[in-house]
């Protein structure tokens, strides 16, 4: 753990700079440049809103905001997990030539995707104003919920990153699992009103961390209520635990990663 903090200090410059570099790389050759950072999520959201709102005629109040929140969190988690499985292989030019703690690669990716998520939430706030969603102090819960999401995602990703080096099939499995969780997470529908069986509702809302985070985020942003925090807190500690296990495992095995990849 101490080593983790030392390495974090040592590489924080690199992490920040590499994050910026990667973001820049994504937009450097396009005509619209940085505008894509906003246009892309906006376009996807509008598509989903159209499909769910016009075609399936959802009755949820403030529907675009509702979907927006779900997708912001989901996209973050989804992109991170997919990227982390192949992250060592995708950085082979770097890892075969210089030693760096491998979780640094993950943190750079986190930086990139946290930036995107923040942009996405900035759009959420714009939409909230546009749709005249009543805003209360409960909105401040936004920050702790975001932190929990980030910590939990990091924990999952450290583990994925480690096994991703060794298991060729993992990315296929992960894609299937993610697709399944995507539909179970209630991004286009409200689990708490659609699912009436209490047992199922508990399973879907509390035992699926993503659904839990999204549910609470909607509570505090749209419905002016405070979060229903117990499970969120539990998932926060699970996230911390996973991160610690993940980081320890990575430290233990990271110098064999390069050998496996040859």
């Amino acid at each position, binding site marked *: 753990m101490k080593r983790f903090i030392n390495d974090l200090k040592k590489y924080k410059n690199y992490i920040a700079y590499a994050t910026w570099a990667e973001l820049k790389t994504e937009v450097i050759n396009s005509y619209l440049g940085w505008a894509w950072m906003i246009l892309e999520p906006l376009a996807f959201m509008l598509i989903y809103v159209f499909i769910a709102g016009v075609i399936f005629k959802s009755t949820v109040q403030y529907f675009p905001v509702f979907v927006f929140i779900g997708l912001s969190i989901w996209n973050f988690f989804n992109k991170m997990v997919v990227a982390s499985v192949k992250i060592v292989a995708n950085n082979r030019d*770097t890892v075969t030539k*210089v*030693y760096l703690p491998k979780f640094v690669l993950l943190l750079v990716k986190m930086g990139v995707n946290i930036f995107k998520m923040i942009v996405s939430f900035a759009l959420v706030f714009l939409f909230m104003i546009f749709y005249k969603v009543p805003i209360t102090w409960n909105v401040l819960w936004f920050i702790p919920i975001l932190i929990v999401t980030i910590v939990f995602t990091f924990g999952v990703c450290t583990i994925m990153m480690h096994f991703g080096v060794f298991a060729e099939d993992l990315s296929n499995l992960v894609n299937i699992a993610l697709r399944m969780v995507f539909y179970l997470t209630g991004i286009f529908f409200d689990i708490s009103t659609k699912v009436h069986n209490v047992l199922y509702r508990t399973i879907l809302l509390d035992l699926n961390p993503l659904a839990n985070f999204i549910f609470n985020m909607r509570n505090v942003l749209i419905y002016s209520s405070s979060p229903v925090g117990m499970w969120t807190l539990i998932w926060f500690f699970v996230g911390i635990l996973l991160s610690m296990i993940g980081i320890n495992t990575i430290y233990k095995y990271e110098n*064999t990663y390069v050998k*496996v990849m040859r």
Partner: protein
Amino acid sequence: MKKKEIAITVNDLHVYYRDMKRFSLKKGGLKEKGSGKLFKAIKGVTFEVPKGQILGICGKNGSGKSTLLRAISGIFSPDHGSINLHGNSISLLSIGVGFQKQLTGYENIYLSGMLLGYTREEIDKKVNEIIEFSELGDFVYKPVRSYSSGMYSKLAFSITAILETDIILIDEVLSVGDIHFKEKSYNKMKELISDESRTVVIVSHSTKTIVELCDKVIWLHDGLIKAEGDPATIMQEYEEFMRAEA
């Protein structure tokens, strides 16, 4: 400073590649250890490099030279034995560490520099020197993807040569660029080397490089030290050996 300080101690080093491929589900799930042939790249190498020495490593292809360098630089973990760097900072001089091809050379200088553990301020101080040395001129503000391979290597070399670390490991990059740049980098190497506190390990096939630059040479053969000692003598033996084999 103490006299005859030791910069690198390598003790009975073994590095193996386990041929575990990257197992798939078909081959039995998430078992990590187990089957897989062991390929022994380094089988027990012991040596010490005193501070300020320039050590050459020669040997035919596949004899474990690059593996040894990577083990010293910390990219590979030893499977047996130990490597002690006595707290010195180290960099493996190799082509294009962590370059982002879409970004400009200038931005890549910062990226590589930070990857090697330098702060922004430290790089700020050196960046002009790096650009000047790399001879890229205005190209340094163009994306790296537009560089010729020579320019690419020049930039990579300049970054590591000018951002100085206590120990520099060089893996056959002295043959970078055109004749002019080659000579320049050669001289830069000499200059770096003449700095008494700097320790250098060079892997090379070139007898000229090793004899001219190195104080001592180690001849690796099949993962073991076949001979070590005075560069001129060893390199002569090595050349004869290689010719006989061909």
